[in-house]
């Protein structure tokens, strides 16, 4: 764009595109769905740029939450139409595409990213797995209870405990 605005969007994409794509792949698995999520996210960022409020979140936080929301929406829509789902099942290992990880594009510093992963890894297995069902698979309490066979109350308690632990570990 001659007025320079697409340059700004391009810089946003260069900065966050790889993280948005990675999160989308982690959640929706299917390549074409992940690409759709990336396009949806940056289209939404473009539409709502003047609604972004610096006092609410950083650009990174805003974009990553848009990405998760759009990916979960797409995943749930897929789940509601199982006949159309021929892709990789959610939760299975996602192959790294040609080119591999792109660490220089990481939004967090290496130390901060490590700290987040360590915090997640430090959770008891029975908390981390339930939290991952909710965060990466978009499952509700009831769906997680059905999937795991755990009592609903146990699911609620463990997810809350996990979130509280992470909050304590990830906030200064």
């Amino acid at each position, binding site marked *: 764009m001659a*007025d*320079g*605005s697409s340059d*700004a*969007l*391009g810089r*946003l*994409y*260069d900065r966050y*595109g790889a*993280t948005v*794509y*990675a*999160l989308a*792949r*982690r959640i929706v698995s299917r390549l074409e769905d992940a690409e759709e999520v*990336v*396009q949806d996210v*940056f*289209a939404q*960022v*473009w*539409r709502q*740029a*003047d609604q*972004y409020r*610096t006092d609410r*979140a*950083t*650009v*990174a*936080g805003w974009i*990553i*939450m848009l990405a*998760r*929301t759009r990916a*979960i929406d797409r995943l749930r829509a897929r789940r509601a139409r199982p006949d159309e789902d021929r892709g990789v099942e959610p939760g299975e290992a996602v192959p790294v*595409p040609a080119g591999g*990880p*792109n660490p220089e594009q990481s939004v*967090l510093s290496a130390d*901060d*990213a490590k700290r*987040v992963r360590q915090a*997640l890894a430090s959770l008891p297995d029975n908390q981390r797995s339930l939290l991952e069902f*909710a*965060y990466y698979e978009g499952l*509700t*309490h009831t769906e997680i209870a059905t999937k795991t066979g755990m009592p*609903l109350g146990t699911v*609620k308690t463990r*997810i*809350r405990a996990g*979130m*509280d632990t*992470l*909050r304590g570990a*990830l*906030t*200064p």
Partner: protein
Amino acid sequence: MTPAPGFGTGDVPPRDHEEWRAAAAAYALDALDAADRKAFASHLETCVECRALVASYAPVLANLGLATEPLRPPESLRARTLARAVNQPRPSTVTGRPPLEAGAKSPAPQPARQTASWWLLAASLMAAAGLGIYAWSLRQQVGVLRTIVSQASAEVQAVRAELANVRRESTRLGSAVNVLSAADLRRVDLTGQAQASAASARAFVSQSHGLMFSAEHLPALAAGHVYQVWVLAPTPMSAGVVTPAPDGTATATMPMPNDVTVAAITAVAVTEEPSPQGSLSPTMPILLVGNIGR
């Protein structure tokens, strides 16, 4: 009251606020079932504590996403993404613009405004890159702490008000004890008259500590009225006014009217008078009266 989330059918009333607090993390995660999510969203409209609690989980959610190992997207995705974004219909982003009249021409596109907002966003991007996600976490935490401080201030105000009430009650009870333990105490039993025939009362009179008045089954007062207690010595002298509780009981301690001695009191009476000060002389009829024993 909106039912608390997590009760399945949603028709079980909330047991306490902890039920809502317990659901905040799941709400932030979007892990509540649809009905519970709707109920919690409705609760959030009026609960600043739960809004702060939900906000406190935002750094967790963002960090989990941002910590995802980056993957290099297909090279073509950049061009497709940018093209789709900038070619989508642009919403009317200028607020405050009056609605278009029917048949009026649409305003011309406003590239200057779009550019301005994008440069602002680009500037924010640079700031965000410098500060990192933990700065964002810090701002979120500050917001939560401000909310907590605000709530704590409100609680302190409530405790102070309660303390003032307790002190007033303590003073009142202390005065009553002083009257009742006075060596020169005289008791007067009052019986109801006229429309207050079901009422009864007692007055304990002490020259040194004043008068304590206690009544039951007092009729409800007309709006803007109080009960006024008189000592007859034998001229009626006002001892004070009292407003009954909704159950018809009333208790008050009052100083002995000036220049009145217990020895001169022949009776204690109660009338209904205009609030807040009562009257200079009793308004008939007398509603309760009792003669002092000799």
